[in-house]
């Protein structure tokens, strides 16, 4: 496997390693599907990849050489790490960010170790995205089966749908276990050293892990992630006042649960809980529910995800005090006005879920040893994820990715940042465009977005003197969506009419999370609307929703004439 990656790099082409490997044997075609970060690597069989690595050991060295030639800036000398360092790269934290970085580092031929004090997979795999998707898969089906009207319109008859709480909880737990094992195996198979123990920075290029194991590395990446943020005054008992960590275990389905915070986490849990029969009260500090989403999208989403469901909400209030249920008393929530701080209301509910965001997990990392001062716990970094110390100067060879730097607290953003860092330490400058990183909320229907919101784009346009246009389309106009009886939803694109640049895309509707990538890739690659609108979408598919947007956009400049005709010849 390692060799496969190394070989592909020597080709200078990132995208088509097949061409080299294809000649060696068809067995090589599997690893090509593993090229990108994230969790998709679980797809391959590890036993074969081990053999693969062995088989290719011989051709590894020459390929490595070719890499060294092209990347002469690297100070590593002749390929093997110099005696003074144990590793080329040490990553502290084996979450999705660390994992993404580790795999890419191996691909780049770096000798890599990853330190994990808890379980491999971090928040995403164990207490976040992954188990929540299992719960949401259940809630989506429950919702569908309970929607008599929806079923009837298909001509289907379903008698009362029910669920077994433990069964649902097991599904989430099993999924997390499976993904965690896949992640561990993928790293082991590639030869990443997984070091167990709490890791901390001892000094420049020096890391301690476990009790007193000290190792050195040329470069260090901090990827320690985050933990649920619990505002002061809130007492979490793990039973009736819980965070997402507890909620994902689904130990109970309360009749009435208050969710503090109406961001992604809160919204997804409201979807799960209401589908399983709970009633939900949102407590949001800002004046509007779903802050952070494009206002139009959040308005529509509220119409679909909040208003018709058994949900009510209090906005513009803080939960100043939450006391867990005990002695036969319910969970007590004291609300104060977010602005005046005056007491506003008291709620008595069966449970409260604290979904007020996440706090960086950076305590005890030994940052003082390299003179780094955290800001509200976040590790300050520049746009290349290089850690900035207390004096505002860069700490050499120290990087921080993912939730710990707080730039964009998403699993795939962490992974992308990790890959960006590995690119840099292996001699190729790279700056990640965060505006091309998509985000998704897996409610039913889903919400997804990439780039700027409409107000942000307008503000930017005003500042930089360009015009901003918006096009919208409805899922009601999409054949596939109608076939699924899921016409509810819109997609909107914010763009520059002068040059056709896509500034942002927001989708609310069936499979929005899967649809966003056409837009995020276009933004990442700088594809202009006038070009992408000529691309063809299969009919009838949901992807035509985006096609509709591209085609409806009014761009002044014409398609760039490209000589694609030669490549097209089959």
């Amino acid at each position, binding site marked *: 496997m390692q060799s496969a990656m190394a070989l592909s790099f020597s080709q200078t082409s990132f995208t088509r390693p097949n061409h080299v490997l294809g000649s060696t044997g068809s067995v090589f075609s599997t690893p090509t599907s593993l090229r990108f970060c994230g969790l998709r690597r679980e797809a391959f069989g590890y036993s074969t990849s081990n053999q693969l690595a062995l088989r290719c050991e011989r051709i590894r060295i020459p390929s490595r050489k070719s890499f060294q030639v092209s990347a002469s800036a690297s100070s590593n000398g002749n390929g093997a790490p110099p005696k003074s360092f144990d590793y080329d790269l040490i990553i502290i934290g084996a979450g999705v960010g660390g994992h993404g970085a580790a795999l890419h580092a191996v691909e780049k031929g770096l000798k890599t170790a990853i330190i994990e004090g808890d379980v491999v997979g971090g928040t995403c795999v164990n207490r976040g995205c992954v188990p929540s998707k299992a719960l949401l898969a259940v809630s989506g089906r429950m919702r569908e089966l309970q929607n008599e009207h929806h079923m*009837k319109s298909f001509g289907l008859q379903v*008698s*009362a749908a029910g669920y077994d709480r433990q069964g649902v909880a097991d599904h989430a737990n099993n999924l997390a276990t499976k993904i965690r094992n896949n992640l561990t195996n993928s790293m082991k198979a590639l030869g990443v050293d997984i070091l167990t123990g709490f890791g901390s920075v001892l000094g420049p290029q020096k890391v301690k892990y476990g009790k007193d194991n000290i190792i050195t590395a040329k470069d260090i990446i901090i990827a320690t992630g985050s933990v649920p943020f619990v505002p002061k005054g809130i007492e979490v008992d793990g039973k009736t006042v819980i965070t997402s960590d507890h909620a994902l275990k689904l130990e109970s389905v309360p*009749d*009435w649960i208050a969710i503090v915070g109406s961001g992604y986490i809160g919204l997804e849990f409201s979807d799960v809980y209401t589908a399983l029969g709970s*009633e*939900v*009260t949102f407590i949001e500090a800002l004046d509007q529910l779903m802050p952070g989403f494009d206002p139009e999208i959040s*308005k529509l989403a509220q*119409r679909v995800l909040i*208003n*018709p469901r*058994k*949900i*009510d909400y209090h906005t513009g209030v803080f939960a100043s005090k939450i006391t867990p249920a005990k002695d036969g*008393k*319910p969970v*007590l929530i004291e609300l104060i006005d977010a602005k005046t701080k005056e007491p506003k209301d*008291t709620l*008595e509910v*069966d449970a409260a879920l604290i979904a007020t965001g996440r706090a960086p997990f950076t305590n005890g990392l030994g940052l003082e040893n390299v003179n780094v001062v955290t800001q509200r716990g976040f590790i300050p970094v520049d746009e290349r994820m290089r850690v900035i110390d207390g004096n505002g100067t860069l700490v050499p060879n120290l990087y921080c990715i993912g939730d710990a730097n707080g730039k964009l607290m998403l699993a795939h953003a962490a992974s992308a940042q990790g890959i960006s860092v590995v690119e840099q330490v292996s001699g190729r400058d790279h700056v990640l465009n965060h505006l091309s990183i998509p985000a998704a909320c897996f409610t039913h229907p889903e919400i997804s977005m990439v780039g700027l919101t409409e107000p942000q784009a307008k503000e930017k346009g005003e500042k930089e003197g360009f015009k901003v246009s918006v096009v919208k389309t*409805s899922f*009601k106009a999409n054949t596939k969506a109608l076939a699924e009886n899921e016409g509810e939803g819109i997609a909107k694109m914010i763009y520059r009419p002068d040059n056709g640049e896509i500034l942002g895309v927001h989708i609310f509707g069936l499979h929005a999370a899967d649809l966003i990538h056409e837009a995020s890739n276009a933004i990442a690659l700088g594809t202009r609307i006038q070009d992408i609108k000529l691309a063809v979408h299969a009919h009838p598919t949901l992807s035509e929703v985006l096609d509709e947007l591209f085609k409806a956009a009014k761009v002044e400049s014409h398609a760039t004439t490209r000589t694609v005709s030669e490549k097209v010849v089959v």
Partner: protein
Amino acid sequence: MSRLLQTPFLPSVSLPTKTRSSVPGFRVKPRIIPIQAKIREIFMPALSSTMTEGKIVSWVKSEGDKLNKGESVVVVESDKADMDVETFYDGYLAAIMVEEGGVAPVGSAIALLAETEDEIADAKAKASGGGGVSQAPTSSPPTAAIEAPVAVEKKIAAAPVSVKAVAASAVHPASEGGKRIVASPYAKKLAKELKVELAGLVGSGPMGRIVAKDVEAVAAGGGVQAAVAVKEVVAAPGVELGSVVPFTTMQGAVSRNMVESLTVPTFRVGYTITTDALDALYKKIKSKGVTMTALLAKATALALAKHPVVNSSCRDGNSFVYNSSINVAVAVAIDGGLITPVLQNADKVDIYSLSRKWKELVDKARAKQLQPQEYNTGTFTLSNLGMFGVDRFDAILPPGTGAIMAVGASQPSVVATKDGRIGMKNQMQVNVTADHRVIYGSDLAQFLQTLASIIEDPKDLTF
């Protein structure tokens, strides 16, 4: 009236907007005509030829916003598409009467538009007093004449609420002695939808919390008439034998009410009433639109006026209420269930108005557009199966009321009279079921005697 309430969405003839300044004295009461000249209703527009109702997708403007002619005010979802609706007038969006997500029939008021900022408050008062759809009688001519029924109507609307508050006994322990309402999110949502007042409601949820079923029970409380008026009842054209069919909302409400009725100790008293005179009267005034139902309701109401205890209701077993108005509910079979539209103040309203009202209520019931106060404020219920030839039956007492009367068919019978002769007379049997906690046998007997004398000598029915 109707001319003054022209929708601002239609280019209409210029309105007599000057009236207000000419009669400043009338401003005291917010609901009288001259004000309405300045406060325009925004109606649900017909956006397509097939559209019968529209859903408010979103309000582009909020209450208090200034509107300029041609600006989008609201986004409406028709059966076809979402459309922006513009105003044809300048003014202020004074009151939103149908919230986002709400559905309103084409032509019904969804908001009020005030001409000046000062009038926003007036419009708000109007909106909160009048409910969703303006039901002001369009034919009544002068201002003074309108004022009275409006006032009455308002009083009635308020009455059942206060009754409910009396009925409340248990409170949520953490609700500071009932000062705060502790209700689950869905209960609150339902209460809003079904226009049920939560204050003072008895909660059956954990720790006395008000939950959805409490609200549903109250909404269905006035009788068998459920909250279903707004809900869609999907009636399958054929019945599939052997299939298990879950209750519709209405059936569920009926079921709950019926079970609840078992907690009330009831008894029955029957009476045979000669209807020759009533039939003759009916024949005479039928052409004026009077219906037999209205006549029976009127006769019953007049008898109730003389026996207030039969018009009372006991809710908690410790006390009972002599209801302040006589509201006769009449059971009507409708597609998919049963509903009891209420003839309010049947003792006071004249027979012709009562007949018109009844027709209006039945039409609304069939269209499932009855407002809650039009079906859950009954104090006494009539159930008539005479039209099917049923000669006698007994009815179950709807919870929250004191008595219900089952009316059989009026049939020619051979009758021996006191003077020893035998003759043919039309007779009908009535059978009253009553709550024996408050109404006793003699009460019913006297009530029935009065009723019989009214029906047998019906001159009072027409005033």
